Protein backbone atom coordinates (compact mmCIF):
# COMPACT_ATOMS: atom_id res chain seq x y z
CA UNK A 1 0.00 0.00 0.00
CA UNK A 2 1.39 3.38 -0.91
CA UNK A 3 1.70 6.13 1.68
CA UNK A 4 -1.07 8.15 0.04
CA UNK A 5 -3.54 5.29 0.22
CA UNK A 6 -2.54 4.52 3.78
CA UNK A 7 -3.11 8.13 4.85
CA UNK A 8 -6.52 8.13 3.15
CA UNK A 9 -7.45 4.89 4.88
CA UNK A 10 -6.23 6.13 8.30
CA UNK A 11 -8.27 9.32 7.88
CA UNK A 12 -11.35 7.25 6.99
CA UNK A 13 -10.92 5.17 10.15
CA UNK A 14 -10.57 8.40 12.12
CA UNK A 15 -13.72 9.92 10.59
CA UNK A 16 -15.61 6.69 11.26
CA UNK A 17 -14.49 6.78 14.92
CA UNK A 18 -15.61 10.39 15.39
CA UNK A 19 -18.89 9.81 13.54
CA UNK A 20 -19.50 6.66 15.56
CA UNK A 21 -18.88 8.50 18.84
CA UNK A 22 -21.68 10.95 17.97
CA UNK A 23 -24.23 8.14 18.12
CA UNK A 24 -23.06 6.89 21.51
CA UNK A 25 -25.43 8.16 24.16
CA UNK A 26 -23.48 7.01 27.21
CA UNK A 27 -20.62 9.47 27.60
CA UNK A 28 -18.60 6.92 29.60
CA UNK A 29 -17.84 4.97 26.41
CA UNK A 30 -16.45 8.08 24.76
CA UNK A 31 -14.24 8.64 27.82
CA UNK A 32 -13.04 5.05 27.61
CA UNK A 33 -12.34 5.33 23.88
CA UNK A 34 -10.39 8.55 24.51
CA UNK A 35 -8.24 6.65 26.99
CA UNK A 36 -7.53 3.91 24.45
CA UNK A 37 -6.71 6.42 21.68
CA UNK A 38 -4.35 8.27 24.01
CA UNK A 39 -2.49 5.02 24.47
CA UNK A 40 -2.42 4.49 20.69
CA UNK A 41 -0.50 7.78 20.49
CA UNK A 42 1.79 6.98 23.45
CA UNK A 43 2.55 3.41 22.34
CA UNK A 44 3.20 4.50 18.75
CA UNK A 45 5.44 7.33 19.95
CA UNK A 46 7.38 4.96 22.23
CA UNK A 47 7.78 2.50 19.40
CA UNK A 48 9.38 5.06 17.06
CA UNK A 49 12.39 5.17 19.38
CA UNK A 50 12.04 1.83 21.22
CA UNK A 51 10.94 -0.45 18.42
CA UNK A 52 12.49 1.11 15.32
CA UNK A 53 15.84 2.17 16.81
CA UNK A 54 16.07 -0.04 19.91
CA UNK A 55 16.48 2.71 22.53
CA UNK A 56 14.26 2.12 25.55
CA UNK A 57 12.51 5.16 27.00
CA UNK A 58 11.13 4.75 30.52
CA UNK A 59 10.23 8.42 30.80
CA UNK A 60 6.82 8.44 29.10
CA UNK A 61 5.33 10.01 32.21
CA UNK A 62 7.86 12.84 32.06
CA UNK A 63 7.01 13.73 28.46
CA UNK A 64 3.29 13.32 29.01
CA UNK A 65 3.45 15.47 32.14
CA UNK A 66 5.45 18.22 30.41
CA UNK A 67 2.75 18.32 27.72
CA UNK A 68 0.01 18.23 30.33
CA UNK A 69 1.42 20.94 32.59
CA UNK A 70 2.54 23.23 29.77
CA UNK A 71 -1.05 23.13 28.49
CA UNK A 72 -2.45 23.73 31.97
CA UNK A 73 -0.09 26.65 32.61
CA UNK A 74 -0.57 28.28 29.20
CA UNK A 75 -4.32 27.86 29.48
CA UNK A 76 -4.27 29.65 32.82
CA UNK A 77 -2.00 32.39 31.52
CA UNK A 78 -3.19 33.10 27.96
CA UNK A 79 -6.36 31.05 27.46
CA UNK A 80 -5.15 29.63 24.12
CA UNK A 81 -7.25 27.18 22.08
CA UNK A 82 -6.34 23.52 22.64
CA UNK A 83 -4.91 22.80 19.14
CA UNK A 84 -2.35 25.58 19.73
CA UNK A 85 -1.56 24.11 23.15
CA UNK A 86 -1.02 20.71 21.53
CA UNK A 87 1.45 22.19 19.05
CA UNK A 88 3.34 24.05 21.78
CA UNK A 89 3.52 20.89 23.90
CA UNK A 90 4.83 19.02 20.86
CA UNK A 91 7.61 21.55 20.26
CA UNK A 92 8.52 21.61 23.96
CA UNK A 93 8.68 17.83 24.37
CA UNK A 94 10.44 17.39 21.04
CA UNK A 95 13.09 19.73 22.43
CA UNK A 96 13.32 17.76 25.67
CA UNK A 97 13.63 14.50 23.71
CA UNK A 98 16.37 16.05 21.57
CA UNK A 99 18.26 17.35 24.61
CA UNK A 100 18.00 14.04 26.48
CA UNK A 101 19.15 12.23 23.37
CA UNK A 102 22.02 14.63 22.78
CA UNK A 103 23.29 14.26 26.35
CA UNK A 104 22.95 10.52 26.80
CA UNK A 105 22.18 8.63 23.59
CA UNK A 106 25.74 8.98 22.31
CA UNK A 107 26.82 6.66 25.11
CA UNK A 108 25.52 3.15 25.64
CA UNK A 109 21.78 2.84 25.09
CA UNK A 110 21.22 1.77 28.67
CA UNK A 111 22.40 5.17 29.94
CA UNK A 112 19.65 6.81 27.93
CA UNK A 113 17.14 4.46 29.56
CA UNK A 114 18.37 5.27 33.07
CA UNK A 115 18.39 8.99 32.32
CA UNK A 116 14.77 8.84 31.13
CA UNK A 117 13.78 7.04 34.35
CA UNK A 118 15.48 9.74 36.36
CA UNK A 119 13.94 12.45 34.17
CA UNK A 120 10.43 11.63 35.43
CA UNK A 121 11.57 12.06 39.04
CA UNK A 122 13.14 15.42 38.20
CA UNK A 123 10.17 16.73 36.21
CA UNK A 124 7.93 15.67 39.09
CA UNK A 125 10.19 17.54 41.53
CA UNK A 126 9.92 20.71 39.45
CA UNK A 127 6.15 20.46 39.00
CA UNK A 128 5.65 19.79 42.73
CA UNK A 129 7.60 22.96 43.47
CA UNK A 130 5.85 25.06 40.79
CA UNK A 131 3.18 27.07 42.58
CA UNK A 132 1.67 28.58 39.42
CA UNK A 133 0.17 25.18 38.52
CA UNK A 134 -0.78 24.43 42.11
CA UNK A 135 2.33 22.54 43.24
CA UNK A 136 1.47 19.36 45.08
CA UNK A 137 -2.10 20.58 45.74
CA UNK A 138 -2.97 20.32 42.07
CA UNK A 139 -4.94 22.64 39.81
CA UNK A 140 -8.49 22.79 38.50
CA UNK A 141 -8.82 23.50 34.78
CA UNK A 142 -11.62 25.63 33.37
CA UNK A 143 -12.78 24.12 30.13
CA UNK A 144 -12.91 26.92 27.52
CA UNK A 145 -16.42 27.87 26.49
CA UNK A 146 -16.02 27.54 22.70
CA UNK A 147 -16.79 24.03 21.45
CA UNK A 148 -16.99 24.72 17.68
CA UNK A 149 -19.39 22.37 15.94
CA UNK A 150 -19.23 19.62 18.55
CA UNK A 151 -22.16 19.11 20.82
CA UNK A 152 -20.24 18.51 24.02
CA UNK A 153 -16.76 19.22 25.25
CA UNK A 154 -15.97 15.54 25.59
CA UNK A 155 -16.84 15.04 21.92
CA UNK A 156 -14.46 17.87 20.99
CA UNK A 157 -11.62 16.28 23.02
CA UNK A 158 -12.36 12.92 21.49
CA UNK A 159 -12.12 14.46 18.02
CA UNK A 160 -8.74 16.01 18.88
CA UNK A 161 -7.37 12.75 20.26
CA UNK A 162 -8.58 10.89 17.16
CA UNK A 163 -6.71 13.38 14.98
CA UNK A 164 -3.59 12.89 17.10
CA UNK A 165 -3.86 9.10 16.93
CA UNK A 166 -4.27 9.16 13.15
CA UNK A 167 -1.35 11.57 12.84
CA UNK A 168 0.85 9.40 15.09
CA UNK A 169 0.09 6.17 13.23
CA UNK A 170 0.61 7.83 9.84
CA UNK A 171 3.93 9.30 11.06
CA UNK A 172 5.07 5.87 12.26
CA UNK A 173 4.12 4.18 9.03
CA UNK A 174 5.71 6.87 6.82
CA UNK A 175 8.93 6.63 8.87
CA UNK A 176 8.88 2.85 8.60
CA UNK A 177 8.85 2.92 4.79
CA UNK A 178 11.28 5.82 4.31
CA UNK A 179 15.07 5.90 3.98
CA UNK A 180 14.99 7.43 7.47
CA UNK A 181 13.21 4.31 8.73
CA UNK A 182 15.63 1.97 6.97
CA UNK A 183 18.47 3.89 8.60
CA UNK A 184 16.83 3.42 12.00
CA UNK A 185 16.39 -0.31 11.40
CA UNK A 186 20.05 -0.56 10.40
CA UNK A 187 21.04 1.12 13.67
CA UNK A 188 18.81 -1.28 15.61
CA UNK A 189 20.38 -4.34 14.00
CA UNK A 190 24.01 -3.26 14.22
CA UNK A 191 24.95 0.27 15.09
CA UNK A 192 28.63 -0.05 14.19
CA UNK A 193 27.90 -1.64 10.83
CA UNK A 194 25.33 1.08 10.12
CA UNK A 195 27.83 3.82 10.93
CA UNK A 196 30.42 2.10 8.75
CA UNK A 197 27.96 2.00 5.85
CA UNK A 198 27.48 5.75 6.03
CA UNK A 199 24.26 5.98 8.04
CA UNK A 200 24.37 9.25 10.01
CA UNK A 201 23.75 7.35 13.25
CA UNK A 202 23.69 10.17 15.78
CA UNK A 203 21.48 12.45 13.67
CA UNK A 204 18.91 9.73 12.97
CA UNK A 205 18.75 8.71 16.64
CA UNK A 206 18.26 12.33 17.69
CA UNK A 207 15.48 12.92 15.15
CA UNK A 208 13.74 9.74 16.32
CA UNK A 209 14.07 10.81 19.98
CA UNK A 210 12.63 14.24 19.15
CA UNK A 211 9.68 12.87 17.12
CA UNK A 212 8.91 10.32 19.82
CA UNK A 213 9.07 12.91 22.61
CA UNK A 214 6.96 15.41 20.65
CA UNK A 215 4.17 12.89 20.07
CA UNK A 216 4.12 11.95 23.77
CA UNK A 217 3.89 15.60 24.77
CA UNK A 218 1.09 16.24 22.28
CA UNK A 219 -0.89 13.35 23.76
CA UNK A 220 -0.55 15.02 27.16
CA UNK A 221 -1.78 18.50 26.16
CA UNK A 222 -5.54 17.75 26.00
CA UNK A 223 -5.36 15.64 29.20
CA UNK A 224 -5.92 18.47 31.73
CA UNK A 225 -9.15 19.39 29.94
CA UNK A 226 -10.20 15.74 29.93
CA UNK A 227 -9.53 15.30 33.65
CA UNK A 228 -10.42 18.92 34.71
CA UNK A 229 -8.24 18.44 37.82
CA UNK A 230 -4.57 17.47 37.75
CA UNK A 231 -2.05 16.96 40.54
CA UNK A 232 1.51 15.58 40.43
CA UNK A 233 1.08 12.15 42.05
CA UNK A 234 -1.52 10.87 39.58
CA UNK A 235 -0.01 12.76 36.62
CA UNK A 236 3.27 10.93 37.20
CA UNK A 237 1.67 7.54 37.67
CA UNK A 238 3.98 4.76 36.53
CA UNK A 239 0.97 3.30 34.72
CA UNK A 240 1.59 5.57 31.69
CA UNK A 241 5.16 4.35 31.39
CA UNK A 242 4.47 0.67 31.91
CA UNK A 243 1.60 0.78 29.41
CA UNK A 244 3.51 2.60 26.72
CA UNK A 245 6.29 0.01 27.03
CA UNK A 246 4.02 -3.03 27.37
CA UNK A 247 1.68 -2.17 24.48
CA UNK A 248 4.29 -2.17 21.68
CA UNK A 249 6.09 -5.19 23.15
CA UNK A 250 2.83 -7.13 23.42
CA UNK A 251 1.66 -6.07 19.97
CA UNK A 252 5.01 -6.36 18.19
CA UNK A 253 7.64 -3.68 17.77
CA UNK A 254 8.78 -3.90 14.16
CA UNK A 255 5.67 -2.47 12.53
CA UNK A 256 3.25 0.44 13.13
CA UNK A 257 0.47 -2.11 13.60
CA UNK A 258 2.03 -3.67 16.72
CA UNK A 259 1.58 -0.71 19.10
CA UNK A 260 -1.95 -0.13 17.74
CA UNK A 261 -2.93 -3.75 18.44
CA UNK A 262 -1.28 -3.59 21.87
CA UNK A 263 -2.93 -0.30 22.79
CA UNK A 264 -6.41 -1.35 21.70
CA UNK A 265 -6.10 -4.73 23.42
CA UNK A 266 -4.49 -3.68 26.71
CA UNK A 267 -6.32 -0.34 26.80
CA UNK A 268 -9.76 -1.91 26.39
CA UNK A 269 -8.87 -4.65 28.85
CA UNK A 270 -7.86 -2.10 31.48
CA UNK A 271 -10.99 -0.03 30.99
CA UNK A 272 -13.13 -3.14 31.42
CA UNK A 273 -11.15 -4.34 34.45
CA UNK A 274 -11.15 -0.94 36.16
CA UNK A 275 -14.93 -1.09 36.10
CA UNK A 276 -15.19 -4.77 37.01
CA UNK A 277 -12.32 -5.36 39.48
CA UNK A 278 -9.90 -2.64 40.60
CA UNK A 279 -7.31 -0.42 38.99
CA UNK A 280 -4.40 -1.92 41.00
CA UNK A 281 -5.20 -5.42 39.80
CA UNK A 282 -5.34 -4.38 36.16
CA UNK A 283 -1.92 -2.72 36.44
CA UNK A 284 -0.60 -5.96 37.91
CA UNK A 285 -2.01 -7.80 34.90
CA UNK A 286 -0.26 -5.40 32.51
CA UNK A 287 3.06 -5.98 34.30
CA UNK A 288 2.63 -9.76 34.21
CA UNK A 289 1.67 -9.67 30.51
CA UNK A 290 4.74 -7.57 29.77
CA UNK A 291 7.06 -10.07 31.46
CA UNK A 292 5.35 -13.09 29.85
CA UNK A 293 5.52 -11.56 26.39
CA UNK A 294 9.17 -10.48 26.52
CA UNK A 295 10.13 -13.98 27.65
CA UNK A 296 7.80 -16.20 25.64
CA UNK A 297 6.83 -14.14 22.59
CA UNK A 298 9.63 -11.67 21.91
CA UNK A 299 8.02 -10.52 18.67
CA UNK A 300 4.63 -9.90 20.18
CA UNK A 301 1.25 -10.78 18.78
CA UNK A 302 2.38 -9.86 15.27
CA UNK A 303 5.24 -12.35 15.59
CA UNK A 304 2.85 -15.04 16.83
CA UNK A 305 0.50 -14.43 13.89
CA UNK A 306 3.39 -14.58 11.46
CA UNK A 307 4.73 -17.85 12.87
CA UNK A 308 1.22 -19.33 12.84
CA UNK A 309 0.93 -18.36 9.18
CA UNK A 310 3.41 -21.20 8.56
CA UNK A 311 6.29 -18.98 7.53
CA UNK A 312 9.64 -20.33 8.63
CA UNK A 313 10.70 -18.27 11.66
CA UNK A 314 13.47 -15.86 10.90
CA UNK A 315 16.52 -16.87 13.00
CA UNK A 316 17.55 -13.20 13.14
CA UNK A 317 14.39 -11.90 14.75
CA UNK A 318 13.17 -15.01 16.51
CA UNK A 319 16.05 -17.37 17.24
CA UNK A 320 14.15 -19.49 19.73
CA UNK A 321 11.31 -20.27 17.31
CA UNK A 322 13.81 -20.98 14.55
CA UNK A 323 15.72 -23.33 16.81
CA UNK A 324 12.56 -25.17 17.84
CA UNK A 325 11.40 -25.44 14.23
CA UNK A 326 14.78 -26.85 13.19
CA UNK A 327 14.67 -29.40 16.01
CA UNK A 328 11.17 -30.43 15.02
CA UNK A 329 12.23 -30.94 11.43
CA UNK A 330 15.28 -33.02 12.35
CA UNK A 331 13.30 -35.25 14.71
CA UNK A 332 10.71 -36.08 12.07
Amino acid at each position, binding site marked *: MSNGRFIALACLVGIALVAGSMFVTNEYYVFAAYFVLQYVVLATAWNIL*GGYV*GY*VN*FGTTAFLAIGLYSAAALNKWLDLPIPVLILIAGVLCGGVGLAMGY*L*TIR*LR*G*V*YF*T*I*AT*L*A*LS*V*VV*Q*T*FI*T*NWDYVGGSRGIYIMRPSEVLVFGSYVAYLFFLMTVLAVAAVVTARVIERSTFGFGLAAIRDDEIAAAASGVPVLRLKLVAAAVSGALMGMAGAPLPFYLTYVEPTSSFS*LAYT*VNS*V*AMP*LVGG*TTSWLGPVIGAVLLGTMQQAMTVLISS*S*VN*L*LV*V*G*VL*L*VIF*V*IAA*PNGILGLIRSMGGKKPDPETN*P*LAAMLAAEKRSSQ
Partner: protein
Amino acid sequence: MGQVAGLLLDSIVSGILVGGFYAAMAVGISIAFGMLGISNIAHPALILLGSFIVYVLNSKFGWDPILVGVLATVPFYFLGTLLYGAYEFAFERRGTQLIRGLAFFFGLLFITEVGLQLIFGVDYRLVEAPYIGPSYNFGPISLPVRMLIPFLASVLLLIGLQIFFTRTFTGRAIMAVAQDKFALQLMGASPVRVKRIAFGLSTATAAMAGAFLIILQPVEPSMGRDYIGRIFAICVLGGVGSLPGTFIAAVIVGVAESITATFYGPSWSPAIAFGFLLIALVVRPAGLFGRA
Protein backbone atom coordinates in the same frame (compact mmCIF):
# COMPACT_ATOMS: atom_id res chain seq x y z
CA MET B 1 30.42 29.24 65.65
CA GLY B 2 27.74 30.92 63.56
CA GLN B 3 24.34 29.42 63.10
CA VAL B 4 24.83 28.86 59.36
CA ALA B 5 28.13 27.07 59.92
CA GLY B 6 26.47 24.87 62.52
CA LEU B 7 23.64 24.00 60.13
CA LEU B 8 26.14 23.29 57.39
CA LEU B 9 28.21 21.03 59.62
CA ASP B 10 25.13 19.18 60.79
CA SER B 11 23.86 18.65 57.25
CA ILE B 12 27.29 17.44 56.09
CA VAL B 13 27.39 14.87 58.88
CA SER B 14 23.87 13.61 58.23
CA GLY B 15 24.70 13.60 54.50
CA ILE B 16 27.67 11.32 55.14
CA LEU B 17 25.51 9.00 57.25
CA VAL B 18 22.76 8.84 54.59
CA GLY B 19 25.46 8.45 51.93
CA GLY B 20 26.73 5.30 53.61
CA PHE B 21 23.22 3.91 53.42
CA TYR B 22 22.96 4.90 49.74
CA ALA B 23 26.12 2.89 49.17
CA ALA B 24 24.38 -0.21 50.54
CA MET B 25 21.50 0.42 48.11
CA ALA B 26 23.82 1.05 45.18
CA VAL B 27 26.28 -1.79 45.74
CA GLY B 28 23.85 -4.36 44.30
CA ILE B 29 23.54 -2.33 41.10
CA SER B 30 27.28 -1.83 41.08
CA ILE B 31 27.70 -5.60 40.97
CA ALA B 32 24.85 -6.40 38.56
CA PHE B 33 25.26 -3.44 36.21
CA GLY B 34 28.94 -2.67 36.61
CA MET B 35 30.41 -6.15 36.73
CA LEU B 36 27.84 -8.29 34.90
CA GLY B 37 26.36 -5.75 32.50
CA ILE B 38 22.82 -6.56 33.67
CA SER B 39 20.69 -3.43 33.98
CA ASN B 40 18.62 -4.60 36.90
CA ILE B 41 16.31 -1.61 37.32
CA ALA B 42 14.11 -3.80 39.54
CA HIS B 43 16.73 -3.59 42.30
CA PRO B 44 15.01 -0.72 44.19
CA ALA B 45 11.76 -2.71 44.16
CA LEU B 46 13.62 -5.68 45.65
CA ILE B 47 14.97 -3.37 48.35
CA LEU B 48 11.37 -2.37 49.16
CA LEU B 49 10.42 -6.05 49.23
CA GLY B 50 13.20 -6.51 51.79
CA SER B 51 11.84 -3.59 53.83
CA PHE B 52 8.38 -5.12 53.94
CA ILE B 53 9.70 -8.53 54.99
CA VAL B 54 11.52 -6.77 57.83
CA TYR B 55 8.32 -4.89 58.67
CA VAL B 56 6.23 -8.08 58.86
CA LEU B 57 8.72 -10.02 61.02
CA ASN B 58 9.35 -7.01 63.24
CA SER B 59 5.71 -6.11 63.85
CA LYS B 60 4.54 -9.74 64.26
CA PHE B 61 7.39 -11.24 66.29
CA GLY B 62 9.40 -8.21 67.35
CA TRP B 63 12.56 -9.43 65.60
CA ASP B 64 15.42 -7.00 65.25
CA PRO B 65 15.38 -5.29 61.79
CA ILE B 66 19.11 -5.74 61.15
CA LEU B 67 18.94 -9.41 62.14
CA VAL B 68 16.01 -9.97 59.74
CA GLY B 69 17.94 -8.13 57.02
CA VAL B 70 20.92 -10.45 57.49
CA LEU B 71 18.72 -13.58 57.58
CA ALA B 72 16.79 -12.47 54.50
CA THR B 73 19.98 -12.36 52.44
CA VAL B 74 19.73 -16.17 52.11
CA PRO B 75 16.31 -16.34 50.38
CA PHE B 76 17.23 -13.21 48.42
CA TYR B 77 20.39 -14.89 47.19
CA PHE B 78 18.34 -17.79 45.82
CA LEU B 79 15.76 -15.42 44.39
CA GLY B 80 18.62 -13.69 42.59
CA THR B 81 20.01 -16.93 41.16
CA LEU B 82 16.51 -17.82 39.92
CA LEU B 83 16.09 -14.38 38.33
CA TYR B 84 19.45 -14.65 36.64
CA GLY B 85 18.54 -18.12 35.39
CA ALA B 86 15.40 -16.73 33.75
CA TYR B 87 17.29 -13.72 32.40
CA GLU B 88 20.10 -15.80 30.98
CA PHE B 89 17.72 -18.29 29.37
CA ALA B 90 15.34 -15.73 27.91
CA PHE B 91 17.64 -12.88 26.91
CA GLU B 92 21.40 -13.35 27.17
CA ARG B 93 21.35 -16.57 25.18
CA ARG B 94 19.29 -14.92 22.44
CA GLY B 95 21.32 -11.74 22.49
CA THR B 96 18.23 -9.56 23.04
CA GLN B 97 19.15 -8.44 26.54
CA LEU B 98 19.18 -4.72 25.97
CA ILE B 99 15.59 -3.91 25.01
CA ARG B 100 13.72 -6.94 26.24
CA GLY B 101 15.94 -7.44 29.27
CA LEU B 102 15.22 -3.86 30.33
CA ALA B 103 11.51 -4.39 29.74
CA PHE B 104 11.71 -7.62 31.77
CA PHE B 105 13.24 -5.91 34.80
CA PHE B 106 10.87 -2.99 34.41
CA GLY B 107 7.98 -5.45 34.47
CA LEU B 108 9.41 -7.04 37.62
CA LEU B 109 9.76 -3.61 39.25
CA PHE B 110 6.16 -2.86 38.44
CA ILE B 111 4.80 -6.25 39.56
CA THR B 112 6.67 -6.04 42.89
CA GLU B 113 5.45 -2.50 43.49
CA VAL B 114 1.81 -3.17 42.65
CA GLY B 115 1.92 -6.51 44.49
CA LEU B 116 3.18 -4.81 47.67
CA GLN B 117 0.50 -2.15 47.23
CA LEU B 118 -2.22 -4.78 46.99
CA ILE B 119 -0.99 -6.51 50.16
CA PHE B 120 0.05 -3.57 52.34
CA GLY B 121 -1.86 -0.63 50.85
CA VAL B 122 -0.26 2.77 50.38
CA ASP B 123 0.21 3.61 54.06
CA TYR B 124 3.67 4.30 55.42
CA ARG B 125 5.02 1.44 57.56
CA LEU B 126 7.77 1.55 60.16
CA VAL B 127 9.66 -0.75 62.49
CA GLU B 128 10.49 -0.64 66.18
CA ALA B 129 13.91 -1.23 67.69
CA PRO B 130 15.70 0.19 70.75
CA TYR B 131 18.14 2.17 68.57
CA ILE B 132 15.52 4.01 66.52
CA GLY B 133 14.64 6.72 69.02
CA PRO B 134 17.80 8.13 70.67
CA SER B 135 20.46 10.41 69.25
CA TYR B 136 23.82 11.79 70.43
CA ASN B 137 24.46 15.51 70.32
CA PHE B 138 27.84 17.17 69.85
CA GLY B 139 27.23 20.93 69.80
CA PRO B 140 25.25 21.71 66.65
CA ILE B 141 25.78 18.21 65.27
CA SER B 142 23.22 15.55 66.09
CA LEU B 143 23.93 11.89 65.47
CA PRO B 144 20.64 9.95 65.42
CA VAL B 145 21.40 6.32 66.21
CA ARG B 146 18.90 5.16 63.60
CA MET B 147 21.19 6.76 60.96
CA LEU B 148 24.41 5.66 62.62
CA ILE B 149 23.54 1.95 62.68
CA PRO B 150 22.70 1.63 58.93
CA PHE B 151 25.83 3.67 58.14
CA LEU B 152 28.12 1.38 60.13
CA ALA B 153 26.40 -1.76 58.84
CA SER B 154 26.71 -0.49 55.23
CA VAL B 155 30.41 0.17 55.70
CA LEU B 156 30.85 -3.35 57.06
CA LEU B 157 28.85 -4.77 54.14
CA LEU B 158 31.00 -2.95 51.59
CA ILE B 159 34.26 -3.92 53.27
CA GLY B 160 33.12 -7.54 53.40
CA LEU B 161 32.21 -7.51 49.69
CA GLN B 162 35.47 -5.81 48.75
CA ILE B 163 37.43 -8.51 50.62
CA PHE B 164 35.34 -11.18 48.91
CA PHE B 165 35.98 -9.75 45.46
CA THR B 166 39.71 -9.26 45.89
CA ARG B 167 40.72 -12.17 48.13
CA THR B 168 38.59 -15.22 47.28
CA PHE B 169 38.66 -17.38 44.18
CA THR B 170 34.95 -16.92 43.40
CA GLY B 171 35.21 -13.17 43.96
CA ARG B 172 38.14 -12.91 41.58
CA ALA B 173 36.26 -15.03 39.04
CA ILE B 174 33.39 -12.52 39.20
CA MET B 175 35.81 -9.64 38.61
CA ALA B 176 37.24 -11.68 35.73
CA VAL B 177 33.86 -12.30 34.09
CA ALA B 178 33.39 -8.54 34.06
CA GLN B 179 36.60 -8.10 32.12
CA ASP B 180 36.96 -11.05 29.82
CA LYS B 181 34.39 -13.83 29.62
CA PHE B 182 36.41 -15.80 27.10
CA ALA B 183 39.58 -15.85 29.18
CA LEU B 184 37.54 -17.09 32.14
CA GLN B 185 36.27 -19.99 30.05
CA LEU B 186 39.86 -20.88 29.17
CA MET B 187 40.60 -21.05 32.91
CA GLY B 188 37.92 -23.70 33.18
CA ALA B 189 35.24 -21.65 34.91
CA SER B 190 31.70 -21.35 33.58
CA PRO B 191 30.77 -17.68 33.04
CA VAL B 192 27.08 -18.44 33.50
CA ARG B 193 27.69 -20.05 36.89
CA VAL B 194 29.95 -17.24 38.03
CA LYS B 195 27.41 -14.67 36.93
CA ARG B 196 24.62 -16.55 38.69
CA ILE B 197 26.54 -16.38 41.98
CA ALA B 198 27.32 -12.70 41.46
CA PHE B 199 23.71 -11.82 40.65
CA GLY B 200 22.56 -13.77 43.71
CA LEU B 201 24.95 -11.68 45.82
CA SER B 202 23.67 -8.51 44.21
CA THR B 203 20.06 -9.28 45.16
CA ALA B 204 21.15 -10.47 48.61
CA THR B 205 22.45 -6.96 49.31
CA ALA B 206 18.91 -5.70 48.57
CA ALA B 207 17.66 -7.50 51.69
CA MET B 208 20.20 -5.67 53.86
CA ALA B 209 19.52 -2.33 52.15
CA GLY B 210 15.80 -2.90 52.69
CA ALA B 211 16.37 -3.35 56.42
CA PHE B 212 18.46 -0.15 56.55
CA LEU B 213 15.81 1.76 54.60
CA ILE B 214 12.97 0.93 56.96
CA ILE B 215 15.18 1.75 59.99
CA LEU B 216 15.96 5.17 58.50
CA GLN B 217 12.44 6.13 57.49
CA PRO B 218 8.88 4.81 57.12
CA VAL B 219 8.35 3.12 53.75
CA GLU B 220 5.53 2.70 51.25
CA PRO B 221 5.53 0.46 48.16
CA SER B 222 6.07 3.03 45.39
CA MET B 223 9.08 4.62 47.08
CA GLY B 224 11.53 2.42 45.21
CA ARG B 225 11.35 4.30 41.98
CA ASP B 226 12.55 7.54 43.59
CA TYR B 227 15.75 5.68 44.26
CA ILE B 228 16.37 4.37 40.73
CA GLY B 229 17.88 7.61 39.46
CA ARG B 230 19.82 8.12 42.68
CA ILE B 231 21.28 4.60 42.70
CA PHE B 232 22.33 4.63 39.07
CA ALA B 233 23.74 8.14 39.46
CA ILE B 234 25.90 6.86 42.31
CA CYS B 235 27.05 3.84 40.27
CA VAL B 236 27.92 5.90 37.22
CA LEU B 237 29.59 8.61 39.27
CA GLY B 238 31.62 6.07 41.24
CA GLY B 239 32.73 4.25 38.15
CA VAL B 240 30.57 1.21 37.45
CA GLY B 241 31.89 -1.88 39.17
CA SER B 242 34.18 -0.15 41.65
CA LEU B 243 33.06 -0.64 45.27
CA PRO B 244 35.25 2.06 46.87
CA GLY B 245 34.11 4.39 44.08
CA THR B 246 30.48 3.52 44.82
CA PHE B 247 30.97 4.39 48.48
CA ILE B 248 32.64 7.74 47.81
CA ALA B 249 30.06 8.68 45.16
CA ALA B 250 27.25 7.72 47.54
CA VAL B 251 28.67 9.99 50.24
CA ILE B 252 29.06 12.86 47.72
CA VAL B 253 25.42 12.50 46.60
CA GLY B 254 24.25 12.13 50.22
CA VAL B 255 26.03 15.30 51.33
CA ALA B 256 24.86 17.30 48.29
CA GLU B 257 21.25 16.26 48.90
CA SER B 258 21.46 16.95 52.60
CA ILE B 259 22.86 20.47 52.05
CA THR B 260 20.17 21.16 49.42
CA ALA B 261 17.46 19.92 51.76
CA THR B 262 18.75 22.11 54.61
CA PHE B 263 19.13 25.33 52.65
CA TYR B 264 16.55 25.08 49.84
CA GLY B 265 13.95 22.68 51.20
CA PRO B 266 13.69 18.88 51.04
CA SER B 267 11.34 18.91 48.04
CA TRP B 268 14.25 19.87 45.80
CA SER B 269 16.66 17.12 46.77
CA PRO B 270 15.42 14.43 44.29
CA ALA B 271 16.70 16.61 41.44
CA ILE B 272 20.27 16.56 42.80
CA ALA B 273 21.04 12.95 41.87
CA PHE B 274 19.79 13.54 38.34
CA GLY B 275 22.08 16.52 38.00
CA PHE B 276 25.00 14.36 39.09
CA LEU B 277 23.95 11.61 36.68
CA LEU B 278 23.81 13.98 33.71
CA ILE B 279 27.09 15.68 34.58
CA ALA B 280 28.80 12.32 35.06
CA LEU B 281 27.45 10.99 31.76
CA VAL B 282 28.42 14.08 29.82
CA VAL B 283 31.78 14.84 31.41
CA ARG B 284 33.17 11.48 32.48
CA PRO B 285 31.09 8.38 31.64
CA ALA B 286 33.77 6.14 33.17
CA GLY B 287 33.09 7.71 36.57
CA LEU B 288 35.48 8.99 39.20
CA PHE B 289 37.16 5.64 39.78
CA GLY B 290 36.31 3.71 36.63
CA ARG B 291 38.69 2.30 34.11
CA ALA B 292 38.37 4.85 31.33
